[in-house]
């Protein structure tokens, strides 16, 4: 209990809410890095997944390739991004972490968008074609709205994994909330360590919940269905 009181004191100390090592700065760093990585992963994986799903080609090999990426441990990804970042002259911190986070976000987005667009009911697709919809109309008016809940679930999984792994960026001298954990470990300051971990956990859970809200807003009422938390996707 005394320890938790010390953590509460650390979290409420005004000194920890200002400056370059303050909580607002670290949260912003964490969010900037995660948002950039998620945006790049979406730009790369979403059009590809939707195209492959729409054309119903190459699906198997694309999902397989994405799953191989899934076997790469996140710490190993960051480690391997380090020499790449140095070779490109980008140094430590933000860039190697970003290079590592993007491939982490691609598999869930690619897999979900590809399979959900491909598995839109054939009868519905045939009916739409019969009504005279062109390929593009079919894609934007039928396939994407129907696939939307699963596609967004894929982006959510990617974003949560990215927010979680962005913590490890501190190991390669990056910013973000992982700093408190890595510094807390190095200095054996358990309050800093614990408070940082609480903030990271909170940010990951908030990210998960925020995408739940987005899902409700973005999904057409006609296709809305209750997605169980962590339903297979």
């Amino acid at each position, binding site marked *: 209990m005394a*320890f938790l009181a010390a953590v509460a004191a650390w979290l409420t100390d005004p000194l920890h809410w200002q400056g370059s090592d303050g909580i607002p700065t670290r949260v912003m760093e964490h969010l900037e890095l995660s948002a950039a990585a998620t945006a790049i992963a979406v730009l790369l994986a979403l059009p590809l997944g939707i195209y492959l799903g729409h054309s119903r080609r190459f699906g198997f090999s694309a999902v397989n390739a994405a799953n191989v990426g*899934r*076997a*790469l*441990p*996140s*710490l*190993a*990804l960051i*480690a*391997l991004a*380090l*020499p790449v970042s*140095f070779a490109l002259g980008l140094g430590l911190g933000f860039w190697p972490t970003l290079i590592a986070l993007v491939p982490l976000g691609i598999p869930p987005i690619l897999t979900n968008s590809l399979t959900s667009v491909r598995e839109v009911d054939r009868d519905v697709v045939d009916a739409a074609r019969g009504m005279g919809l062109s390929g593009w109309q079919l894609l934007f008016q039928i396939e994407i709205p129907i696939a939307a809940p699963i596609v967004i679930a894929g982006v959510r999984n990617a974003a*949560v994994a990215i*927010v*979680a*792994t962005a*913590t*490890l960026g501190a*190991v*390669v001298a990056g910013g973000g909330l*992982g700093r408190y*954990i*890595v510094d*807390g*470990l190095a200095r054996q300051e*358990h309050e800093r*360590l*614990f408070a*940082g*971990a*609480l903030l*990271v*956990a909170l940010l*990951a*859970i908030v990210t*998960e919940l925020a995408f739940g809200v987005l899902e409700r807003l973005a999904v057409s009422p006609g296709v809305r269905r209750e997605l*169980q*938390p*962590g339903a*297979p996707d």
Partner: protein
Amino acid sequence: MTPGEPLIRWEWIAAHLGDVGHRILEHLVLTGLAVSIGFVLSLALGVWAAHRPGVYAPITWVAGVLYTIPSLALFALLIPFTGLSVLTSEIGLVSYTLLILVRNIVAGIRSVPADVRESALGMGYTPAQVLWKVELPLAMGVIVAGLRVATVTTVGLTTVTALIGQGGLGYFIIDGIQRFFSTPLILGAVLSVLLAIALDWLLVQVERLATPWARTRQ
């Protein structure tokens, strides 16, 4: 990473083979222990929850929250209480296996057709016999699929425990980062991926041996 330094110094690896073997073994023990404990816990929870939706929902909710907490943060939350120990690593690693394993065990048990279950009961099987001789064998495919995902994930997460003084192959990754030395860094990353692939393959073989009926049907 230092200019002029090759990405991989093979002679460094050759000189550290004993250390490599030691770390692979440590990685296997940390992973194996976590997946085994996670599996026993999940089996108990899954069997309990399979036919009780009111039990299943809260279990997956708690497991889901644990799964969402970033690995380094979960370890960090435990350190003030359990220190830089194997116990801290294992509590964290086991926590991450629960969601995947419970979900697959329950899905597997629920996938057994009601007809089959009722036939077994009609033939005089006790509920325990139905579980062990009918439901779990038929659920084996889905359960092993979950076990494979859990194992591959745990191999990756085990590298993170190097930051709290454990880590197996993660030791080389952290060592490489701290010394700006790419050889151990790449060695640790590549070996942990290979270990994940090898264990995944092993589990496929175990599944083939454990479900002879699925083999003869093909």
